[in-house]
């Protein structure tokens, strides 16, 4: 459980400590399996991200560049994790990622096929 959690919670572009191609294989395998099992292709996730940005931007100021929408996977559930940094007056012109507060993750049950 702990290992699987850690395995799947890596950010897709997290820096890796080992240099061999096995590291790339692990990363790519994680990515395809998460999407296969949830039956949500990466392209759909990008559309969802655009929708979320559009909806939220009508009401609040968000740091569009750093919105992240990701699938994660543990032994018994798939999870859609949405992270939306807010732009606040004090930080809006600071470079890089503003200090953000996260939206609550939306949970989806694992597909019944696995």
């Amino acid at each position, binding site marked *: 459980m702990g*290992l*699987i959690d850690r*395995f799947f919670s890596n950010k897709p572009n997290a820096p890796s400590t*080992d*240099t*061999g*191609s*096995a*590291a790339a*294989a*692990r990363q*790519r*395998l*994680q990515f*395809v*399996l998460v999407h*296969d*099992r949830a039956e949500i292709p990466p392209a759909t996730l990008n559309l969802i991200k655009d929708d979320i940005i559009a909806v939220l931007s009508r009401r609040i100021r968000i740091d569009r560049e750093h919105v992240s929408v990701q699938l994660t996977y543990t*032994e018994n559930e798939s999870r859609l994790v949405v992270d939306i940094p807010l732009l606040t007056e004090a930080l809006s012109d600071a470079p890089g990622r503003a200090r953000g507060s996260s939206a609550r993750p939306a949970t989806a049950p694992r597909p019944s*096929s*696995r």
Partner: protein
Amino acid sequence: MAGTVITITSGKGGVGKTTTTANIGTALALLGQKVVVFDGDVGLRNLDIVMGLENRVVYDVIDFVEGRCRLRQALVRDKRAAPGELYLLPTAQTRDKSAINPRQMVEVCEELRRDVDYILIDSPAGIEQGFQNALAPADRVFVVTNPEVSSIRDADRVIGLIEARGKGPAQLIINRLSPARVKKQEMLSVQDIVEVLATEVIGIVPEDEAILSSSNRGVPVVLNGKTPAAQAFQDIARRVLGQDVPVVEPQSLSWWQKLLGIS
């Protein structure tokens, strides 16, 4: 006697299903079991070639299903695997998957089960009709994968299908592992694969040059005993029989082990 049917399948093609079927079947017979290895890949017959029995095939399972022979007549005896008994049940080379259906596969296996301990079905890769045929009579299912992203991805899919059909949990055979490359971080390790597939491993078969010459000659590696892959297949056969043979990830040999010729 009520024999056990084990279907050997995979998500992706070319990962070693036929090699695995031939070798586990032969190893079980060498351990004294009565075994039928059954070619479940209609139209792409090759278990007979890998076993070196192609010249002795007279009838095949489609001849039996269509009433041209008795089941006994389609079985080819392989006398090399004493003290047990080993038979090949070939399929047709010139027909397609629709020549046999899942219900007929079950009937064939019911008839074989009465006389043998194990029936190993060499299944086509997942998802097509041929796979449904091979899955229908299965008591146990082994999924073969290579330590490679595309192969593992497809294995994941097929493991899900097996479970959905009520034939799970599948057990995993990791074939063509190269310990030296794992050590150099060039290949996914057994642990990497197990973590993502969350499926019990029943065997790890190393990459072994002897496999190619063995299929060139039509002599399964377990008949010549000592190569790394042969030992891995013999271990799997013992686990099938319920013997307690721990599954350990093969290690690459250090320079002094190579010098001393330890394997």
